[in-house]
Each structure stands twice: as C-alpha cells, then as structure tokens.
C-alpha cells in the first residue's frame, strides 16, 4: 500500500467581499497517495483553483490542514513555504509556463539548480526525461521555438525532475488542441504512476479524466462527489455521466 503524499483536512478558505464572507473552499477533506493521479473538476467558481493555490503553498488556508509529506502548510511562514514549493511540489500552469530565455534543457535543470542538486547525474536524468517526452531533439530550443504541446511537456519534465512529493497541474491542456491535450495528459499520468508521485490536475475538460485514477468534483467550495471506479470515470470522461 503506497503512502499518503497529500492530505487535506476540513479545509476552509474564506474571502471577504463588500463586508460579506465567502467560503471559496468550504470544509474539504481528501487524501492523495503516492503514485495516484487525481483530477479536480467543477464549474467556474467552484473553488478548484483556490484549492490548487492552497495545495501549491501560494495561498494560506483560513482553517483546516494541508499536509504534504507530513508537513502542515498552515503552520509554515513564507520562507518555509518557498522551500516547500521548491523541494516538495512540482507545478505546471495553463500558460507562460517556462522561463523564456532558458532552453528546454535549462528550464528543466533549473529546478535542480534551485534545489542545489544539479550534477552530472541530474543532467543525464533531465535529458532522459525530456527524451522520454519526445523532446530529445529540442533540448537546445528556447520556448518560443517550440509548440504549445512541446512547451507543456517541458513543463511536465520540470515539474517531475526534482522528485517532488506532489505534482500540481492547473489546466495543463487549456492552450492545446485535442490531440496534443490527450497526448500531454496521458504522458503526465504515465510519469506520475511510474515515478510514484501524487498528481493533482485541475481541468475543465472532462475528457482528460480518462487518464486519472480518481476524480474529485467541487461545487460552491465543497467537495460534492468523488468518482473512484474506472467505470464511473470512463463514463464521466465520455460525457455519459452528468456531473
């Protein structure tokens, strides 16, 4: 049985707007194990992006706990959160993912530089990872010289290279065409499983759920449903199930 990499307990995030308190995340609890790939879905305003921001240690929860590799985010100061992001979290974003003046290889290696782990072995691993993502001939290309799909794959390599406990992806397919989107998420899922990381993907596109192990559905800040069986997830991805 794999260990719990991420645990969320009774998480609440409130915002004050015109004197009214709004709970963007309202008492959510779940766990993600190492090697498990989870999709976080829900309509706009359901709280999934806020949830992802908290999991990424970019936002402090109002109440509740978020444990990454056993460390409670709520108890950390900014310096410790930066360290946690660097060491324990891998992140891919919707767009503007890469540092524009670093090549594909340099972008991936940068995570190792940040963690003071850039050595010969790290360089080899970085090249291997990029090669596995079909980018062996793009190592020296700048982001502007690559397609959106290639850039996302570089971002995936960067998110995984430093062996983080948790890998977070915010709408990784938002700027891709369907074929490339499937390809990217499939590769992502494969690497999450293979490397034994806990992966969480926020997506609007339910078709992408066919590659995940579990789907967490949020609405109005609450976790309203969890799809766990392969049958349910397949039907959700195919649009058979109404979510």
């Amino acid at each position, binding site marked *: 049985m794999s260990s719990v990499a991420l645990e969320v307990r009774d998480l609440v995030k409130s915002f004050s707007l015109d004197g009214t308190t709004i709970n963007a995340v309202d008492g959510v609890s779940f766990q993600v194990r190492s090697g498990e790939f989870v999709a976080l879905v829900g309509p706009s305003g359901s709280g999934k*992006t806020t949830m*992802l*921001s908290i999991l*990424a240690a*970019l*936002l402090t929860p109002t109440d509740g706990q978020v444990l990454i590799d056993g460390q409670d985010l709520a108890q950390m100061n900014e*310096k410790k959160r*930066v*360290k946690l*992001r*660097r*060491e324990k*979290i891998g*992140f891919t*974003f919707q767009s*503007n*993912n*890469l*540092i*524009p*003046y*670093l090549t594909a290889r*340099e972008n991936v290696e*940068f*995570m190792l*530089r*940040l*963690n*003071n782990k850039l050595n010969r072995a790290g360089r080899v691993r970085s090249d291997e990872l990029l090669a596995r993502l079909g980018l062996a001939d793009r190592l020296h290309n*700048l982001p502007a010289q690559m397609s959106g799909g290639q850039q996302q794959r570089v971002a995936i390599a*960067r998110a995984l290279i430093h062996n983080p406990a948790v890998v977070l992806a*915010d709408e990784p397919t938002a700027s891709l065409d369907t074929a490339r989107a499937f390809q990217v998420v499939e590769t992502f899922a494969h690497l999450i499983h293979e490397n034994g990381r806990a992966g969480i993907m926020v997506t609007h596109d339910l078709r992408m759920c066919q590659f995940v192990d579990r789907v967490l559905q949020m609405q109005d800040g609450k976790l309203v449903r969890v799809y766990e069986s392969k049958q349910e997830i397949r039907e959700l991805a195919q649009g058979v199930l109404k979510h």
Partner: protein
Amino acid sequence: MKNIFLAAYLAVKEVIRNRGRFLLVALVIALITLLVLFIAALGEGLANGNRQYVANLDAQLIVFLEKSDYSISASRLETNIIKAVRRVDGVADAGPIYTSNTEIVSLPEPLKISMLGAEAGRPGMPVIVEGRDFRGGEAREAVMDRNVALRSDIKIGDTIEIRSTQGTNDKFFELVIVGMVEGQSYFFQPTIFVPPATWEKIRPQSEAELNSDTPFPNIIAVKLTDPTQADSMSTRLVDEVANIESANLETTINNIPGYSAQQGTVQTQGVFTLLIGILVIGGFFQIQILQKVPQIGVLKAIGSSNGVVGLSAVIQIIVVTALGVGIGGGMTYLFSLGFPPTIPLVFNGTRSLIAVALLLLIGPLGGMVSIIYAVRIEPLKALRLG
C-alpha cells in the same frame, strides 16, 4: 551564496538570450556616458582655460589692491607695494603680475592671447620647459605657453607680431620667442609672457595711459617661507602693507570673472544629464519588469526566493550599465582623439572617475523601483490564480 549564483545565472542568461534589446539599452547608457564625460571634460577644460595660470603659480598668496574684491582685472597696485611685500617677515619672494589681452597677427588667422608681464625667476613667471627665460629691461623677447604653439606653427626662435590698440591707433610690435612654458592658459586664452617694461610699452592702453612709462602690476604673487602659514601670513600682509587685500589661490580662482558661474552651469548640466539617465534607465527596466510579471510569478511559484528574483534584477542592471558605461568610455576616448586643441576638453582622471562612478550608480538607482516591484510580485496574482 547559492542565491547569488542562481541570480547571476538567470540575469546573464536573459541578457545573452535578449542581447539585441539589452544592447540597445546599453547604447542609450553609452550615449549618456559620452555626454556626461564630455560635460565633465568640458568643465575641466573651461576651468583650466580660466584658472590654469593662477592654479600653477609657485606662490601661496595673491596680493590685490584694497577693495578690489579679489578681482585681478579690478586690481592695480602701486609699484612700491612689491618691495613692501617682500620686506614682510615670512615672505620668501614676491613677483608682480601684469595682465592684458592682445592678438598675434603674424599668422594666417590672428590668434587672441593673454599677454602677461612677469619678472624672470620671480613668483608669477612659470618654469621654462624649453628654450630660456627672457632678458630683463625692455627686451623684445617673449616666452610662450605650449598652447600657443599647439594652435599655430610658432617655434622658439620665431618672431611674432602683435597688435595693440594704444589710444586711438593700432600699433604693431615684434617679439622674439625665446622659451616655452606649459599649461598656462589664462582667461580662456593661451598666454605669452614678457618682461614688465616691455609689457608696459606694447600692451593695449587708453589715451590717458600713454603718457606713463611705469608699469602698474595687477597683482603680486607671494611665495611664503612656510606655505602652511598661508592664513596667518595673509592677515600679516594686510596688517603691515597699506592699501592691499590678500587671498589664497583658491579664493583668487573663484573670483576670476565668470569662473564660479561657469563651473556651476557645467556641473548643473552634468547633474541633469545624470537625472535624465536615471529616468531613462528606470523607465526601461520598469517596462521590462511589467512585461515579465508572469515569468517572475512562475519563478516564485516553483520556489525561487524574493532574494533570487531581486538580486537577478540588480545583477542584470549592473551588467547592462557597466556594458553601457564601458562602450561610452571607449566612444569618448575615440571622439576625444579627433578634437582640435581649440576645444577646451580635458579628461582629468579624478573628474572622469567621479563621472564614471556616478554613471555606474544611475542604473541601480534608476532600476530601484523596478527591483522593488519585482520583489513584491505575488505569484498568485502574476499567474492569475488568485
């Protein structure tokens, strides 16, 4: 230390990969550098042209006519004052200085010069670097400043002709150049030195002055036995010699007509150029940071500290500024080689170094706002997650 390496890595990579853009900014800084260095050189050149002779005097004090407000042209001393000054205890030597302007007409283009009367071997007469001193009395001999030679083909041994208006007539006098001195510009003009009696004969003078053969010195250069006692000796001179006032060289220079105003103007120009530089550099880096907000957001989101982001911006600014100042310095040097001696540009080491140091500061100063902005970028907002 790790942060510095990371920041330097990011900064240098960005500069190299966007070299066109950064080179453009470096060129703007280079032009500002060129302008600032030229203003500094012009300031030094103009100052030299005005004060060089006085500044290089082998004397510590200058004696003026009382109430002349330390103005050389307003001062006219009685001849017996020279002896009185020499008798004061603590005075090693004193030499009269006579000033006037005239022009050398024996050239294809007349050359305006300062004609100074001084006694050979006395304070007021510069050290001869080539040739010999003029003889005394009414010898029609002159010693020229090297600046005269640089602006004409006159050599030692040549005879020059000068024109002086005496009364209502133009009169022409010939002088043989017997020696050369160095760095003796006065009142923006190159200088020739003649004996006092000759000076009195050939200087421009009014109708009323034509009847007198006695040369009246404008000032007296006083060399002290103990140069460190200049202040007390100044007081003693005024106490012991009637109808005079005394000042050190600095006061004398500052009271040369137009000197302070001119230096103030040049310095103000320099300061404004630096301020413009700060605004230009600041504007560029601010625009650049605004364009880089999402990128900085990513850097922070993946675990780069504020220190790395801020340091990277600082290093980048320093690299670009240093490159610009280097290019500007080189351009200034190349340009300076092509300027004729008539343009008063003097690249004084201290002034140029101060200018370069200030120029190296304008980048970080100008970029200060953008650095603070970069450090304050919140990844959540930058990535539009919040």
